[in-house]
């Protein structure tokens, strides 16, 4: 993305309406997730205010903003991971394929909406068992089908060639970048419709980061990706759409090019040009 002004050729087939103010509508058709009027509270403290946005299917959407702006919290409402925190609650509406996500069974939801975390968090198991984990909790009992699926997932995460001879080794033997790709492969193994990535490169060096970004590109035709990043260049490099959060509000949401080149809001421009952050 963001190659030139005409770089949105892939998007041309989509109807792009001009950016509206807060929580502007972007793509009219083919919306994977539709968030409207989302408020979020940790106990009495409100951390998200009336967030509305639409996540297009099989695209990469980036969420940027300074630390503590609520972008990670927002991401965690999309698979209800916030529920591990006591007294946290979300109010509003989130639709996943027109189904009310906040009313779904969280276990079912998380099989459809996967997540990759800030720090690589492989389980203290073998590489194979890590990838097979999600399949096993979903009822797979091993055998050739499981092995095939593990290989396919590792290939999709561009890790197969590096680990194919050491599948029984501990996942902790891998480097940080490999571990993060392992975590992506692990999430992909259950064929999620949406993959949430919470600053997946913040603990990695530039070379490992480049590999992950390359990987994200290759995944977007099979999966809707939403990535939180505090690295603006990363958002500009990988994302089709970008949302800018500030103090718990979604300030601007539009095609990445527009957000970075001709932002509609003063706050967005200040942030992007490095006036604060």
């Amino acid at each position, binding site marked *: 993305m963001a190659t030139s002004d005409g770089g949105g050729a892939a998007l041309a087939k989509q109807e792009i309406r001009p950016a509206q103010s807060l929580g502007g509508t972007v793509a009219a058709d083919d919306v994977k997730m539709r968030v409207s009027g989302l408020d979020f509270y940790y106990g009495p403290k409100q951390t998200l205010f009336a967030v509305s946005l639409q996540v297009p299917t099989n695209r990469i959407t980036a969420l940027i903003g300074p630390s503590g702006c609520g972008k990670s919290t927002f991401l965690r409402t999309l698979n209800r991971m916030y529920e591990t925190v006591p007294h946290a609650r979300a109010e509003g509406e989130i639709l996943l394929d027109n189904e009310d996500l906040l009313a779904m069974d969280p*276990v*079912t939801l*998380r099989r459809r909406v996967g997540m990759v*975390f800030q720090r690589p968090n492989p389980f203290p198991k073998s590489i194979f068992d890590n990838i097979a984990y999600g399949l096993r909790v979903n009822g797979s009992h091993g055998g050739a089908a499981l092995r095939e699926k593990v290989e396919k997932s590792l290939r999709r995460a561009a890790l197969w060639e590096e680990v194919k001879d050491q599948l029984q080794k501990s996942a902790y033997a891998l480097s940080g970048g490999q571990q993060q790709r392992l975590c992506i492969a*692990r999430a992909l193994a259950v064929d999620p419709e949406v993959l949430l990535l919470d600053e997946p490169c913040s603990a990695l060096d530039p070379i490992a980061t480049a590999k992950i970004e390359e990987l994200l590109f290759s995944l977007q035709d099979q999966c809707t990706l939403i990535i939180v990043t505090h690295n603006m260049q990363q958002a500009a490099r990988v994302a089709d759409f970008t949302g800018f959060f500030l103090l718990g509000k979604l300030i601007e949401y539009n095609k990445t090019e527009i957000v970075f080149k001709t932002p509609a809001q003063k706050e967005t421009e200040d942030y992007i040009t490095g006036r604060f952050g």
Partner: protein
Amino acid sequence: MLWRNIWRKFVNYFMFSMTGLCALVTVGVLFFILGYLVWNGGSSLSWAFLTHLPTPVGESGGGMANAIVGSGKLLLLASAFGIPIGFLGGVYLAEFGGRAFPFVVRYTADLLNGVPSIVMGIFAWTIVVLPMKHFSTLAGGLALGVMMIPIAVRSTEEALRTVPLVLREGALALGASKWKTIATVVVPAARKGIVTGIILDIARVAGETAPLLFTAFSNRFWSPGWNQPTASLPVMVYTYAISPYDDWHKQAWAAGLVLLTLVLVANVAARLFVSGRTAH
């Protein structure tokens, strides 16, 4: 300036020496006890001691086979009863608890841990020995089992709390239920700490004497089944040590040595088992 430097170096050196000395004392005490036991009891320790029954008063020789087996049975029963309750209670505290109830449970567990072991004996005596009208392995096992619960609860809880939140989140994010997450990720990750805690727990009650005095009592012969009074190593040490016979004193030392050796062997074996399973 110079004095400050000297003073600082002195304090540094002094504290280093003190901590090192205390660490040495810790290790030293164990080896001192072990050495003393070997010195006094080693001569009575023989194959016969491990495989024969005690001889009648006045005859020399004989062994403590029944006490070794008795202690084993008591610990088996206590573990079968205390470990599952303690383990699952610890899982509850670490993984499911809210605020008020876990606080009460934790506090109660600490109090239970502080209950003098002789009181635990009276408790088992009242609820098992009195209704059955005789001493038994069952009563002794129960008394030891109750004593195991608080440590098993607390050590399991502590071990589970060291597992980073991101591992739990990783499993939950893959669509694992909470219980599945605990059973397949959290507990295996904390396995080392849990097993170590439980071994220490068993080792601790293995040496308990007071709760056995009026529950398992003692026995000069084999104790078949779970229903009869049984000999146990700690009670044998106690009985033999306060006897007026020189020969028995030696056997008491030997029994102490056997008890300590069994605890050490169990400890090392379990640690090897745990580390062997992790390095895969």
